[in-house]
């Protein structure tokens, strides 16, 4: 009813034009990158990617050479593997520890609980920049810089406040009676955590996992700081940003490399979008 009336007041055509223009502005840049990555180097320097649109089905104008080149000599395949290793550890550890902590803080009764929670919420305020130098010094002493383990742990340290905050909000919503009933039936705390709280929060956990996964996969700064210049452990983001420096104007290679770094997040995003959105909304807007 409302929408019908609003429609009548603001011409539908205007709305459609604005939305479609916005969609074009948001999709064309990525599309240009994708098309360019499949064009031969000689074409890329002499004409804009939009020239293929005059005869988009002429398949001889496309090539996969650029991808072959960046995956072999560009070091993108090693970087891909590194990104994967870093992201898996950097997601599993913080999500696991956060679910333990969020469970403890919302369902167990102990002294100082409020204080711990306040500490965690306060940590949301601290920008990671405040921690780089001391943590890096510590890492240099312990030989943890330039290692995957070091990066897993640091992503855990940085990811925990938000993860705990989000899961705490969710666990708070689970009725206490449920857990009391489980205890009366003789369940241990671990059982009530592992068999009750975890299965009940699968949607929240899924959101958090996707969120943290994309966050770590796309991270540049933390990797730059703690991996130093070690090429052999550099993830895609670090590799790509150094290619921007070294390949400079070699757009055929740069665009292919960029697309290699974007493939996983784009697939994750489009297949699991609803969980991702729910993660963003976690605690932000309720009802």
């Amino acid at each position, binding site marked *: 009813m409302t*929408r019908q009336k609003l429609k009548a007041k603001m011409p539908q055509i205007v709305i459609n034009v604005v939305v479609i223009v916005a969609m074009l502005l948001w999709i064309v840049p990525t599309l240009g990158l994708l098309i360019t990555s499949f064009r031969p180097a000689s074409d890329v320097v002499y004409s*804009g*990617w939009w020239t293929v649109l005059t005869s988009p089905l002429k398949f001889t104008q496309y090539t996969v050479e650029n991808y072959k080149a960046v995956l072999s000599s560009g070091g993108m395949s090693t970087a891909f593997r590194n990104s994967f290793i870093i992201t898996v550890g950097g997601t599993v550890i913080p999500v696991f520890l956060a679910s333990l*902590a969020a469970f403890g803080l919302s369902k167990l009764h102990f002294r100082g609980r409020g204080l711990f929670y306040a500490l965690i919420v306060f940590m949301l305020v*601290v920008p990671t920049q405040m921690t780089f*130098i001391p943590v890096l010094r510590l890492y240099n002493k312990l030989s943890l810089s330039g290692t995957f383990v070091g990066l897993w742990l640091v992503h855990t340290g940085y990811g925990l406040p938000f993860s705990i905050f989000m899961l705490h909000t969710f666990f708070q919503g689970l009725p206490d009676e449920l857990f009391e009933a489980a205890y009366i039936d003789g369940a241990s705390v671990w059982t009530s955590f592992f068999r009750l709280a975890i299965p009940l929060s699968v949607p929240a956990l899924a959101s958090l996992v996707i969120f943290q996964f994309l966050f770590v996969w796309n991270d540049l700064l933390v990797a*730059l700081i703690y991996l130093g210049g070690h090429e052999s452990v550099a993830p895609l983001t670090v590799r790509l940003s150094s290619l921007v420096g070294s390949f400079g104007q070699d757009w055929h290679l740069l665009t292919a490399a960029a697309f290699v770094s974007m493939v996983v997040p784009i697939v994750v995003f489009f297949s699991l979008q609803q969980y991702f*959105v729910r993660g963003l909304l976690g605690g932000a807007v309720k009802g």
Partner: protein
Amino acid sequence: MLTALFYVGPAVLFLLVYQVYPALQTVYLSFLDRRSESFVGLENYKYVFTSQTMLRAFKNNLLWLVLFTAGTVGLGLLFAILVDRVKYERIAKSIIFMPMAISFVGAGVVWKFIYAYKPSGAEQIGLLNQIMVVLGFEPKGWLLESPINNLALIVVGLWIWTGYCMVILSAAYKGIPKELMEAGQVDGANDWQVFRHIIIPEMRPALTMVTTTMLVNVLKIFDIIYVMTNGNYGTEVIANRMFKEMFQFANTGRASAIAVVLFVMIIPIMYANIRQKLKGEG
């Protein structure tokens, strides 16, 4: 108590090692010299607040603060309301939201290519300069000329973050009770009045949330600058400068002072942000 320690202990240990201790240590280091050997008082802070480079960075961050925040929240709100009224809402939202999924580095390359510049007369391969040429203008070095390059970088930021604002604001918009808007219209309010007096007040919590989130983002903005200009040609920002002080100039004192200043600027914004989130929780 021991049980509680098992659940909460590991997380608290991580926070002490990775957040509490280093943050305090950074404050301490900001009063020491570049090698953290001797006490220099407020020398590093004097650099932060008076040097040309830092003043330039502050100015740019301020420009970002105004344009980026207004742009992401404004466009996000506009799109949130408009997509609600088209049949292809889902796909429109997915497309605008997609840049959030890719890395800022990836987005940086995407846009560096849009801004690619060749001297006039040569065939342009950057879309923006091609459009300029078609319209009869001279091609421009979008990332090289100040102050236009700052705007060019901010546009990249808008492209990445508008979708985030849109998604959150769209959820809030759909949460406004229909009766409320209907009642407004029955009382003879026009679109603008409904927007101003019903939609905006109803969406205030969500607006506060996204605005504060964008403000914090802007203060910490790093990746886009690092990849696209590395702070050259007058595009320096605070976080990139800190990175340079740390690695390029190996000046721990100055880098720490910059971090502390950043922290102090973020505190009030995050306070508002968290208060809003906790309200939503209760």
